[in-house]
């Protein structure tokens, strides 16, 4: 199988990279282009840009910065945020993005997944899922970019994971909300439970605090990649430092 991927995620709000804790209190961390190049040069396998303001505001991402990112970096990147139509997805892919990632719009209109897969191919359709354990099992939340709009989607995570695959999703990013931004390790248990019903590539997201957290999620939950923000943005570790630790444990990464 391919090398396990280390994926820095840049949450973009009004053209700046921001990061919150458990989706709240966003702090300014810098310019998306500068950070993109920095990560590209320090071993990132892929980048994700989440326009976190897009879905709650009913807006969609602007394509001009996507073109600038595409010109700058030579690793794959995906764009998420308010992509509600096939036409919009095609614009973003044309601007140079390799994948589009949809979250809230897929929950509102699941048919969109089928349409995107038919038009653009499953390989570029990533489904992002914001999820945590609730009283009856794992539950999905939507419009998570803003505390004013975040709410439960009334769906079971595991059912949704099965459904999006049937509809043509090519990859799933599992954002475990209870772990997000607190840097106490990935939610291994939830990743494992989702892995059991997920045949397409699965990316763990939320909770990375040290290089060993990546080792654990690869070894214990068999995810294809692991996504993190704070640990990279705050300069705690570079992707290459994480990969060195992961490789020492005999896990294949691109060095």
């Amino acid at each position, binding site marked *: 199988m391919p*090398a396990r991927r280390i994926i820095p995620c840049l949450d973009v709000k009004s053209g700046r990279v921001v990061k919150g804790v458990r989706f709240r209190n966003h702090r300014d961390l810098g310019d998306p282009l500068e950070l993109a190049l920095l990560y590209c040069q320090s071993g990132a396998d892929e980048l994700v840009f989440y326009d976190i303001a897009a879905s709650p505001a009913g807006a969609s991402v602007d394509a001009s910065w*996507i*073109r600038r990112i595409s010109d700058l970096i*030579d690793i794959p990147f995906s764009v998420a945020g308010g992509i509600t139509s096939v036409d919009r997805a095609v614009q973003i892919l*044309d601007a140079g993005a390799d994948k589009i990632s949809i979250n809230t719009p897929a929950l509102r209109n699941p048919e969109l997944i089928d349409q995107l897969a038919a038009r653009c191919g499953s*390989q570029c359709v990533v489904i992002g899922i914001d999820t945590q354990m609730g009283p009856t099992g794992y539950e999905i939340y939507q419009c998570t970019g803003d505390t004013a709009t975040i709410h439960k989607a009334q769906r079971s995570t595991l059912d949704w994971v099965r459904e999006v695959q049937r509809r043509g999703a090519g990859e799933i990013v599992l954002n475990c909300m209870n772990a997000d931004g607190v840097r106490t390790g990935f939610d291994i248990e939830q990743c494992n439970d989702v892995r059991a019903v997920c*045949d397409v590539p699965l990316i763990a997201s939320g909770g990375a605090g040290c290089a060993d957290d990546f080792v654990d999620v690869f070894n214990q939950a068999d995810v294809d990649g692991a996504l993190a923000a704070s640990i990279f943005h705050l300069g705690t570790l570079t992707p290459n430092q994480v990969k060195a630790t992961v490789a020492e444990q005999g896990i294949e990464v691109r060095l």
Partner: protein
Amino acid sequence: MRPNITIVDIGGGNLGAVRSAFSRLGAQTITSADPDLIAKAERVVLPGVGHAEPVMNHLNSTGIAEVLQTFERPLLGVCLGMQLMYQSLDEGDICGLGLLPGRVKKLQPAAGFRVPNMGWCQLHADRSHPISNGLRGGDYAYFVHSFAADVDQHTILSAQASKPITALAAFENRVGAQFHPERSGPVGQKLLENFLC
């Protein structure tokens, strides 16, 4: 002077990424769906992501297919563009351009191997060829695909999926990359540089 690159506009897909990669190398690119313009190009790149059937129909109905089939200067197919260079494809059960012999087959999931095959895979050097100068076995390239050609006499580099697959093929003026050189870091850049030579 770098040769001008004409990127075939197949409507959507990885056009932007391919254009960006050549511009980082200082090459001029144009994007075109005009068969006459493509016929006169110094170098042609056939990019492509997505489903094979609508793209192949588009190439046939616009006359671009015929132009590519008789094109004598260097031609590079990337990912779906590479797959369409083969004689036939499982996806949509269609005929391709017939520029490379063989059939592009559906990848089967196996223990430790998921479909789509998405991520950085190690390359294995099968044959030497000017297009792969500077690339070595063990280098990583970025793949995103659910179909692939078997290893055959035109394979320059291969990769391991549930079975060995062709990662880079070359035959006469034609080169096909199953991986995405435009998104494969310095390894991909080296390949694109070789294509410009």
